[in-house]
């Protein structure tokens, strides 16, 4: 497949002939719509993961200043770029802890993005679909789809929501919810600062809460227990209260939402540190949560990228470094409850990536930052069947174009491919189509084509061990 100047695969006539068996003749191009050739593949899912932690580096992480390091006159002294196995180059000065877990994870350097605007690209991250405002009300997040597929595995003791999202930015795309799927698969949105949120009764108020709950039931009693009618197609507001109470009175909850000093030291006293401690606790407790979206904001370094102050690149990388490495280590040292001999990491798919990358080479004179870059960016994939210690994809000298995509499709790995990969890892058939959507338009778990070009999306098999 040829790539045009924007590195978007373009379907040549020969490919169309091979693929569709129909010869292109001149002016009929406009009226011809591609057949669904993707349908020829049967979906063979891997089923290696039970749950997902998706770390969303919100803003666009600079790949040449992190996982795919390039040195130049712009590189600050503290970077200390070193070489690692498999041709990997990273800044040891910023990613010291990460280098200790390289043997547990896969680094991907050939991710690509369709959109260069945060809102649309963030929407892609959460849903795996391009933002289409006509359909947006219906389209569920990947997490919601996952949770609806895994709903049949929910246990009676599961009190926590299946999909939890932490620190999602209210701007840009916002937090994408369950779309046309049932509300129980929508994300519970938590705001996690340096301290965890309050899902248990406030400290010292446990007795007060119990008493008040009792009194509320008495006051409302006759009204709350009323039956309304056999066919109820909406969630009764009282159900939310019952669900909230189930969480608040679950004895595991206070522990899950406690961050010890030891945790803080290892994960770092940052919001991403807290998020990942909670993620670990949630999965260890196995109280119903199967998809966790943790957003780490502030990566949009258009200006002063290397400045070492509040929320610029070095600070963010170091935060991520401590938090992510500790998470990987802790997950891998927790034995799995479901597969003897395996660890929690083996059954948890951990993805850490941004919505796009940043420009390469020298930084601008005026703003001293980097701009958005959709052609290539880098991410980390671990657990849930992913290879350990692998590096996939290679970029050119500048770190801005792909030289070797590292997989069979020989092109960037897009969010659609990653959606296929996530579904496959969880044992979900990614080629599913839902016909009975409210609008009547079929909903594809992963759309067969993206935007205006034909691209056959599929799981990145090269990730799987």
């Amino acid at each position, binding site marked *: 497949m040829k790539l045009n100047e924007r590195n978007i695969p373009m379907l040549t006539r020969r490919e169309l002939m091979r693929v569709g068996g*129909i010869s292109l003749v001149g002016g009929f191009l406009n009226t011809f719509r591609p057949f669904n050739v993707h349908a020829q593949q049967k979906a063979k899912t891997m089923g290696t993961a039970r749950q997902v932690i998706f770390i969303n580096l919100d803003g666009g992480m600079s790949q040449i200043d992190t996982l795919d390091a390039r040195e130049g006159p712009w590189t600050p002294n503290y970077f200390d770029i070193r070489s690692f196995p498999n041709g990997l180059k990273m800044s040891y000065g910023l990613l010291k802890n990460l280098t200790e877990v390289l043997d547990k994870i896969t680094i991907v350097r050939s991710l690509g993005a369709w959109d260069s605007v945060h809102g649309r690209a963030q929407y892609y991250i959460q849903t795996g679909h391009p933002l289409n405002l006509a359909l947006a009300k219906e389209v569920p997040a990947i997490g919601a789809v996952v949770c609806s597929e895994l709903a049949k595995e929910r246990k009676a003791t599961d009190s926590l929501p299946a999909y939890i999202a932490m620190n999602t930015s*209210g701007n840009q795309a916002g937090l994408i919810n369950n779309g046309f799927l049932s509300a129980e698969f929508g994300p519970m949105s938590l705001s996690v600062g340096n301290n965890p949120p*309050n899902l248990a009764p406030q400290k010292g108020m446990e007795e007060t809460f119990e008493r008040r709950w009792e009194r509320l039931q008495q006051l409302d009693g006759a009204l709350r227990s009323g039956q309304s009618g056999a066919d109820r197609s909406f969630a009764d507001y009282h159900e939310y209260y019952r669900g909230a109470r189930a969480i608040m009175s679950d004895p595991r909850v206070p522990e899950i939402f406690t961050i010890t000093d030891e945790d803080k030291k290892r994960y770092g006293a940052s919001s991403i540190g807290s998020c990942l401690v909670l993620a670990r606790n949630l999965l260890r407790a196995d109280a119903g949560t199967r998809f966790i979206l943790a957003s780490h904001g502030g990566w949009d370094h258009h200006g002063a990228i290397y400045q070492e102050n509040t929320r610029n690149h070095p600070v963010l990388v170091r935060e991520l470094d401590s938090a992510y490495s500790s998470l990987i280590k802790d997950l891998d040292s927790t034995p799995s409850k479901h597969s003897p001999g395996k660890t929690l990491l083996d059954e948890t798919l951990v993805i850490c990536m941004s919505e796009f990358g940043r420009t390469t080479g020298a930084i601008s004179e005026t703003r001293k930052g980097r701009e958005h870059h959709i052609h290539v960016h880098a991410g980390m994939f671990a657990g849930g069947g992913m290879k350990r210690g692998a590096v996939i994809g290679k970029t050119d000298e500048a770190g801005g174009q792909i030289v070797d995509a590292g997989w069979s499709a020989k092109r960037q790995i897009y969010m659609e491919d990653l959606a296929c990969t996530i579904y496959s890892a969880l044992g979900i058939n990614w080629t599913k189509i839902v016909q009975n959507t409210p609008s009547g338009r079929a909903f594809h778990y992963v759309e067969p084509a993206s935007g205006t070009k034909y691209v056959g999306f599929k799981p990145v098999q090269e990730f799987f061990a």
Partner: protein
Amino acid sequence: MRDRAFIKLFLLAFWIAAVVWFGTNALQAQKKTASQKPADREHTDEKLTVARPDKEVSDLTRDVAAKLPHLGTGQQKILIRNLIDQHLFGAMAKDNVPHAPLSNDYEFCRRLYLDLTGRIPTPEQLKTFVNDPAANKRDRLIDELLASQAWVEHWGYWYGDLFRTAANRIGDPAMKHFNAWLRQSLKEDKPYNQLVTEMLTASAPNTIWMPDAAPATFLARWHVPGITMYQDRYEDTADEIIVQTARLFLGITYQCISCHQGAGFLEKVNLDLVSKTRQDFWAMSAFFGKTRVRVITFQDRYTVTDDGTGYDTKAPSSVRLLREGGDVHPTFILTGEKADLRKPLRPQFARLLTQNPQFSRATVNLIWKQFFGLGIVDPVDAFDMARQDPKHPPSAPWTLQPTNAELLDALGRDFAAHGFSLKQLMRTLARSSAYQLSSRFDGEWKESYTPYFARRYVRLLTAEQIHDAISQATQVFGNYNRRDPIYGSALPPVRFWTEAATPEDINNGEAHNFVRTFGQANREQFDRQPGGSILQAMMLMNSPFVTRRVRAEQGSLVEQLVKSAKTSAEIVDELYLATLSRSPLPPEKQLAVSWIEKDRKQGAEDLHWALLNKLDFIFNY
């Protein structure tokens, strides 16, 4: 020689035949794939609920209203007060549909305050209204609230959500001026057609930061960048302007035909748009073909001028399939009227838009939904123009789209006849007996009654309304700091959320955290998300935002009552009036009094907490 020529001729004939054959196949294939199911992909025909806003509203009301204590009913006879009543009660009488009784004064007062000002009445306001013996007190209250500053703030904020005027799209200075202009326009009840015209025709030659360029912020907000943030895509921007303008002011979604023709795609979606094409869409965008929204600083400063040469179908696009064809003549899609190219285009567009009956109908329908809980056409941005005229109904299986087409038409004409006054429209809606019906329904409610608006439909309070209601009910106001977005000087602190122009004006993380849980609109791309969640219940029960306010300290209502000489029974009454805008039922009162007798402070705190967690607090009924 002749053989070679013959062979060439034969090949040519073969080639032509092949072309014709493939061509017709392709056309047929295109028609077929619309209905064909690809055989090899797994299908799930799960039983999902088809979105039916009428059914949702009916179910929710039927369940919730049964759980709400309705204290007596307004025993007055239902009077036919205006055209709304004529049409609705006429239809009910004709089709033998029973209706709810009138709301009582408590219900009506709370509901009207919420719908017009976004706030609940204070006990004083409530008592004054309930005890007023005047026969026309409801009309007087409507007029009083329409003239209030709270009305301006509530609707100024609401229109801010509607126009998606996000401060991080446009920059603080522009937002400040735009919101000031918007609120001033609402305050003086500027005719709506004039307000829309100003927004569509304003220019900002020296950036939208200039106060008198304020209305142009609406257009600048839809700017589409090119490959870098410093490039402009004029045609894409024009497209976005048309999509948003049509959605907001005509209730029609042209998003679909901006990328593909209607035929082969919309047969099950919109009958009118099936016959429309991308060319029709571009012909609308061409009204903004000479308009240039240029970026100076990305998502911060823009200029809006009309110095372009026209809508260029050959221009590249950041967000859509490439266009084709030559010059496009600006043509108004609803009427086919073509623009006079010798005159400025935007004023012509604004006139064609606002003079079209659909402008009035869509506006009326949108506001109707805010008052009645369900649009006459719902969803409000899905108007299908082929299904509006009762004299020319569509063929089966399509049905007429408005649930009461005559009413919508009449209201649209009435709106236009009254100078497109929003206040007059709201007055007409609120004065009708239909609006004043109770949500309680004696007898068996049938879903088929829903289009008749035979009862009041309940809905959750909005995020901002919940915030304000809690603050007011507990008398503990946030008094959030605010700074002038341009000069940085301190502004009066915010007590009620809608005093602020945009959410970003309010400087308090806890408040934002609380409000966001209740589905606040993201002015970027998404409107308000309705519906409940577990987190909402948790917030109401456990968030410091609530638990702090029910404590007997810091001048809260509970503190005032506990420290006063009032009896337990009086405390219960006051808390009910302040929180639920009604008096307690005897069993409620007995129970609550026993708590306060047992421990005055703890009982009062517990009671206030419980009241904030009752259904009738969180619902607008």
